[in-house]
C-alpha cells in the first residue's frame, strides 16, 4: 500500500502541476506533493524495519533493506530540494530568466522525475528498471535546457545523446541477462524479476552474464558519471537550474549506481569470481583520479562541484567493487552522506550565484559579509564534502581507504593523492568565495537555507553517531550485496 502511494503521489503531482503550474501556488503544491511522497516513504521504511523484506503486486515491486534506504533518501532529498526551489525559482523569475510557462514545465517534470527515480528503485523487474532509468533521462533533458541559452541547449543535447546511447547498451545487457535467465526460469514475466534471478543466480550461464555485465556497467555507468563516459555530467550540472543540479547529483547518480550494484550481485553469483568487482574498481579508481585533476582547472563553481560528484561516485563504485562487509557498508554510508552534502552545497551555491549574478568563481566574493548564512553554508558544506572530521563523509572515506589498504594496497596512493588534490583545489577556491570584499546587492527574496543546514546537521550526526537501527540496516544490506 505504501508503495502505491510513493509512486502515485509524484505521478499525480506531475499531472496536477502540468495543469495548474501557471498558478501562484505551484511551488507550494510541488513541495506538498514531495512532502506526501516523503511521508509515504517514511511509512514504508518503518514497515520494512518491522516486517523485513517484502514484495507487492504479483512480485512486480520489491523492497529490501538495500533499496528502502535509497527510497527514503530519494524522497527526503526530493522534498528538501523542492523547499529550496521555491524561493530560488521565484528569484530566477524576478531576474527575468524564466517565464511562467517554463516554471510549469519545471514543476511538472520535477515530480515526474521523482516518480521515475522511485520506480527504478522499487521495481523488481530489471526491464522496468531500465525503462524508468531512460524515462529519468527524458524528464530531465528539458529541465537542463530550461533557460534556453545556447550553452544550456548544448548541454541538454549532449546529455540526451550520451545517456541515450549509454542506456541503450544497458538495454542490450538486460536482453543478455534475460537470455541467460530464460534458460533457467523459463520464458515469460518472471525471468526478469530480481528476486527470482537472485534465487537461481548460481545456475546462470557465466559467459553470457560476464558479457551482460560489461554492457550493463557501461550503460548505467554512463549515468553514474564514471570516467571516461562522464562528459555529459559537468555540462548538465553547470547549465541547468540549480535545483536540477542538486537532484541530478544527489539522486540520479545514486539510482544509476544502485542499478549497477544490483547487476553485480547476480554476476558475482553466476561467476563465483571477482570479475564484476574488478571492473567496477577499475572504473571507479579512474573516475576518482581523473575528476580530482580536472577539479583544479575549473572556473565555474557548479562545474567544479559536478567534478567533485564524479570523484565521489567513483569512490563509491570502487567501494562496492571491493566488496566485503566493511567496504559495502562504507559505500552505502557514502551514498547517503554524499547525497545530503552535495545537494546542500548546490543549494548554497545556487543562492551565491544568484547574488553575484555569475557562476565564475573569480567574480564571487565575500559571501560571509553580505549573506552570512549562504557563506557559512558553502564553507561548512565544502569542508564536509572534502572529508573533514567530524562529518559523515570522513567516516565513510576512512572506512573505504582503510579497507583498500588491507585488501588492495596498491590502490592507496592513487586514492590518497586524488583526495589531496581535490582538497587543495576546492578549499582554495571556496575560501576566496566565502571571505573577501564585495559590494554586490542582497537578494530580492529571502533565500531558503533551512534545507542546507538540515542536510549538514544530518551529515554531522552521521559522522558522530550512526543510530543502531541504521547501522543494522546498512549491515543487512551489505550482507545482501556481499
Amino acid at each position, binding site marked *: 500500500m505504501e508503495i502505491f502511494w510513493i509512486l502515485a503521489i509524484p505521478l499525480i503531482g506531475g499531472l496536477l502541476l502540468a495543469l495548474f503550474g501557471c498558478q501562484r501556488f505551484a511551488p507550494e503544491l510541488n513541495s506538498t506533493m514531495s512532502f506526501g511522497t516523503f511521508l509515504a516513504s517514511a511509512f514504508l521504511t518503518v514497515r520494512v524495519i518491522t516486517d523485513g523484506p517484502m514484495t507487492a503486486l504479483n512480485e512486480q515491486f520489491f523492497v529490501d533493506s538495500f533499496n528502502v534506504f535509497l527510497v527514503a533518501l530519494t524522497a527526503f532529498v526530493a522534498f528538501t530540494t523542492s523547499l529550496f526551489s521555491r524561493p530560488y525559482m521565484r528569484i530566477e523569475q524576478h531576474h527575468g530568466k524564466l517565464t511562467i510557462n517554463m516554471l510549469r514545465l519545471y514543476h511538472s517534470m520535477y515530480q515526474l522525475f521523482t516518480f521515475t527515480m522511485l520506480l527504478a528503485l522499487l521495481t523488481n*523487474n530489471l*526491464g*522496468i528498471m*531500465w*525503462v524508468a532509468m*531512460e*524515462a529519468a533521462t*527524458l524528464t530531465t*533533458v*528539458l529541465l537542463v*535546457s530550461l533557460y*534556453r*541559452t*545556447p*550553452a544550456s*541547449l*548544448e*548541454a*541538454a*543535447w*549532449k546529455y*540526451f*545523446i550520451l545517456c*541515450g*546511447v549509454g542506456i*541503450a547498451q544497458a*538495454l*542490450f545487457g*538486460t*536482453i*543478455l541477462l*534475460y*537470455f541467460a535467465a*530464460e*534458460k533457467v526460469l523459463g*520464458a*515469460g*514475466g518472471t*525471468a*526478469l524479476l530480481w528476486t527470482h534471478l537472485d534465487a537461481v543466480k548460481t545456475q546462470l*550461464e557465466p*559467459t*553470457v552474464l560476464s*558479457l551482460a555485465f560489461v554492457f550493463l556497467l557501461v550503460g548505467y555507468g554512463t549515468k553514474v558519471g564514471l570516467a571516461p563516459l562522464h562528459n555529459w555530467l559537468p*555540462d548538465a550540472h553547470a*547549465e541547468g537550474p540549480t535545483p536540477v543540479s542538486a537532484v541530478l547529483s544527489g539522486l540520479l547518480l545514486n539510482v544509476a549506481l544502485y542499478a549497477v550494484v544490483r547487476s553485480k550481485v547476480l554476476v558475482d553469483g553466476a561467476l563465483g569470481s571477482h570479475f564484476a568487482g574488478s571492473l567496477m574498481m577499475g572504473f571507479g579508481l579512474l573516475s576518482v583520479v581523473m575528476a580530482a585533476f*580536472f577539479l583544479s*582547472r575549473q572556473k565555474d563553481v557548479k562545474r567544479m562541484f559536478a567534478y567533485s560528484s564524479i570523484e565521489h561516485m567513483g569512490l563509491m563504485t570502487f567501494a562496492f567493487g571491493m566488496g566485503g562487509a566493511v567496504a559495502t557498508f562504507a559505500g552505502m554510508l557514502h551514498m547517503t552522506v554524499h547525497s545530503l552534502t552535495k545537494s546542500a552545497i548546490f543549494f548554497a551555491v545556487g543562492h551565491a550565484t544568484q547574488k553575484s549574478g555569475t557562476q565564475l568563481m573569480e567574480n564571487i566574493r565575500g559571501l560571509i559579509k553580505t549573506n552570512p548564512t549562504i557563506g557559512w553554508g558553502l564553507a561548512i558544506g565544502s569542508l564536509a564534502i572534502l572529508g573533514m572530521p567530524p562529518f559523515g563523509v570522513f567516516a565513510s572515506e576512512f572506512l573505504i581507504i582503510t579497507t583498500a589498504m588491507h585488501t588492495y594496497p596498491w590502490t592507496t596512493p592513487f586514492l590518497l593523492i586524488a583526495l589531496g588534490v581535490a582538497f587543495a583545489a576546492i578549499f582554495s577556491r571556496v575560501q576566496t568565495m566565502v571571505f573577501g570584499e564585495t559590494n554586490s546587492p542582497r537578494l530580492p527574496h529571502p533565500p531558503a537555507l533551512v534545507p542546507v543546514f538540515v542536510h549538514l546537521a544530518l551529515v554531522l550526526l552521521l559522522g558522530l553517531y550512526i543510530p543502531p537501527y541504521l547501522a543494522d540496516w546498512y549491515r543487512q544490506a551489505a550482507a545482501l550485496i556481499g
Partner: protein
Amino acid sequence: MANFSGQLINLFAALLLLIAFAMLSQRRVLSLINLFALQGLVLSVSTMIVANSSSQHHLYYSAGLTLILKVIILPWILHRLIRKLNIKWDVETLFNIPTTMLVGIALVVFAFNLAAPISQMAGTITKGTLGIAMASVLLSFLMMITRSKAVPQVIGFLAMENGLFFAATSATYGMPMVVELGIALDVLVGMFILGIFFFQIRETFDSLDLKHMEKLKED
C-alpha cells in the same frame, strides 16, 4: 515449413543489415526517414514470421506494436517535424563515405565474432541472426558519430533501438510484454521531447547543425 521460415527470417535479417548500410550513406534527410520506416516494416514482418513459426503468440503483439510505432507514428512525426522546420530537402555533406563503409564492414565482422558464442547457446530458430542484430546496433552507432546534424543523429538513435529490438527477438523471442510496452512508451515520449527540443535549438541557433554546439569543452 520451419526450414522455409528460417530462410525467410535470414532473408529479412539480411535486408535489415542492408538498410543499416544504406542509412549510413544516405545524405538526404527525407530519404533517411523513409529508410527508417522501411527498417521498421522489415522488423515487424520478420517478427511476425518468427511469431508464426515458433508459435509465440505474444510476438504478434510486439510485431503490431512495431508496425504502429515505427512504421506509422514515428516516421509521421519526423515528416511533420522536417516540414515544419523547413529542412525537408536538406542534404548533408558527408565526408569519406567509402571509408565509413569500410569501418562499417569491420564492425559487422566484429559483431559476428562477439555474437558467435551466444548464438550457439540460443535455442531459438533465429539464433543465426543475433550477429546481424548486433551489427545493426553498431552501424547505427557509427551513423550517429558521423552525422553533424540533429535530425539524422536522432534517426540513428532510433535505428539503434530497432537493432536492439531485433536482438531481443532473435536471442529470446522478445522481452516480456510489460517491458516491451515500457520501451515503446519511452521511445514515443522521447520523440515528442526531441520534437520540442529541435524547435528550441532552431530558435536559438537558427539551424540544426550541431557544429554550433561545440562550445562546452574542457580547456
